[in-house]
């Protein structure tokens, strides 16, 4: 019974971790219409940067601030990179996929060359604190992940639904041309979108880095988990990311704890396929905002 409880709590928290990556993906998608295959690498850069700084003597919080600065600069640059394609209507998914994969390759290899190929794990101020459950201990790091996912989700929900910038970004993400003709400043908001994704990436990085191994090559795996979560939930909804993340987190932990690792490896792809077979736009597909045929 305790085992089950433990798997559930850890599954929820790890799911929160997937959700953090997925939130970065879905916020950029909702804000700019770009599906980012480099989100995991943004997370990686943040985590690795903090890791290198903390082993170099800086504290966790100092590292966090520095990583934020680094990622912000990188996000602005990335945003600028995506302005031209957005305005020139290069929104074809194949171009975006290959373009962001290119970005991911660059980030991963640059990080490897510049920050090094060592592996780390972050220690946060709350790492030592833990909830005890018989022999099990659940570090506050895990709890922090779940909390952060929930808070960021709420923040983005409010941002997109309630604010005017959020409205303009949704317009841009749905139809750049119509948005542009409406006077939306595509360039500026594209950068804003990437900056948001970068900020979520920093949070994801510094939090996830405390529970998994940090290295320059961790990005792709994170991106894939993030996608799985975002797709299962439905890309359009910030809470979709959390729902999807938690589903995968739980499923993986139960599969690993009660079945075997092959099942665990297969479970996320299988869930994606099963969900999209029944609900092609994810669980939270919502009302059909697809334009009717006229």
């Amino acid at each position, binding site marked *: 019974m305790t085992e089950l409880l433990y798997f559930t709590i850890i599954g929820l928290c790890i799911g929160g971790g997937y959700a953090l990556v997925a939130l970065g993906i879905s916020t950029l998608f909702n804000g700019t219409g770009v599906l980012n295959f480099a989100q995991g690498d943004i997370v990686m850069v943040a985590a690795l940067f903090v890791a290198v700084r903390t082993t170099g003597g800086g504290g966790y919080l100092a590292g966090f601030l520095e990583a934020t600065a680094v990622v912000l600069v990188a996000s602005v640059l990335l945003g600028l990179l995506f302005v031209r394609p957005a*305005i*020139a*209507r*290069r*929104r*074809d998914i194949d171009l975006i996929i290959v373009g962001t994969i290119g970005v991911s390759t660059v980030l991963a290899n640059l990080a490897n060359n510049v920050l090094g190929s060592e592996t780390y794990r972050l220690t946060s101020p709350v790492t030592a604190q833990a909830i005890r459950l018989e022999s099990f201990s659940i570090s506050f790091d895990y709890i922090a992940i779940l909390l952060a996912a929930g808070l960021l989700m709420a923040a983005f929900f409010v941002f997109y639904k309630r604010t*005017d910038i959020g*409205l*303009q970004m*949704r*317009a841009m993400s*749905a*139809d750049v*041309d*119509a*948005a*542009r*003709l*409406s*006077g*939306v*400043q595509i360039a500026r908001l594209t950068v804003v979108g990437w900056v948001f994704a970068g900020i979520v990436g920093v949070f994801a990085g510094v939090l996830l880095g405390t529970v998994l191994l940090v290295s320059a090559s961790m990005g792709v795996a994170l991106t894939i988990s993030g996608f799985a979560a975002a797709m299962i939930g439905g890309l359009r909804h910030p809470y979709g990311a959390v729902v999807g993340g938690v589903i995968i987190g739980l499923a993986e932990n139960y599969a690993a704890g009660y079945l075997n690792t092959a099942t665990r490896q297969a479970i996320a792809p299988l869930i994606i396929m099963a969900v999209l077979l029944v609900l092609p736009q994810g669980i939270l597909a919502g*009302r059909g*905002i*697809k*334009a*009717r045929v*006229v």
Partner: protein
Amino acid sequence: MSDDSTRLPAALELTGFSAYHGSVAAANDVSFRVERGSAVGVLGPNGAGKSTLLLAAAGFVRTTGGLSIAGQVADRLSPARRRRLGLAMVPQERAAVLELSVAENLRLSWLTGRRATPYEQARESVLEIFPALAGRLGDPAGNLSGGQRQMLAVSRGLMATCDVLLLDEPTAGLSPKLISELVQAIRTLNERGITVLLVEQNFSVVERTCSYIHVLNGGRIVWHGPTTGIDRDSIGDLYSGARRTRPPAPRAPDPVGEPRVRTTVDRAVPAGSGEPEGT
């Protein structure tokens, strides 16, 4: 009032204004003034360059020549800046974000405009003109009928609380009843001092709203004068020989036999863009 207006700068003035798709000038050496509070019509056959001209005035197409809005030189400004100077456009295509609700579309337009009146007030006055939209505020714009979309498009133009309104075929797809109402609305706008530049195929609408017209053909102004100076049939004559045949552009000897890749059908090309594929 009308005496003053000649001394005031024109609400919109084009001088030697040309607009380009790639290297082809779709509007060529166009010059005219639109006085404050008046409505001027732009007519012409299909493909004459009317939409290009409006898009260019609003800053979405690469141009040469001069453009000023209320006396302020604007030909280098971004579309957003022009909009905040009080120039709003109702485009022919992509006039609304179909995925957003009707209300959100209205708000979006208000946001990027001048915000001269509070949002609620602006919305109420627009919905008075198009009551059919009032019941649909929460629906995605994509669910509207063709004519309802057209109403939304015009409403969005009005939401920008502009001084100069560029309307690209606002009556296309509207029922006769709504056309009359729109005509009335344009007159009201003029009375409030708002300037309208109207592209239309429907001559009777132009007749009922515009004091002056320019006829565009092949990108050039082929006739202009007061509306009273021309009738429906002689307009038709000005349209003849209209169809542009594109001069064979200096392209590669078409090694592919495949058209150049374009991914969407619309044509909002950024001002001053040096797109590599803009051949």
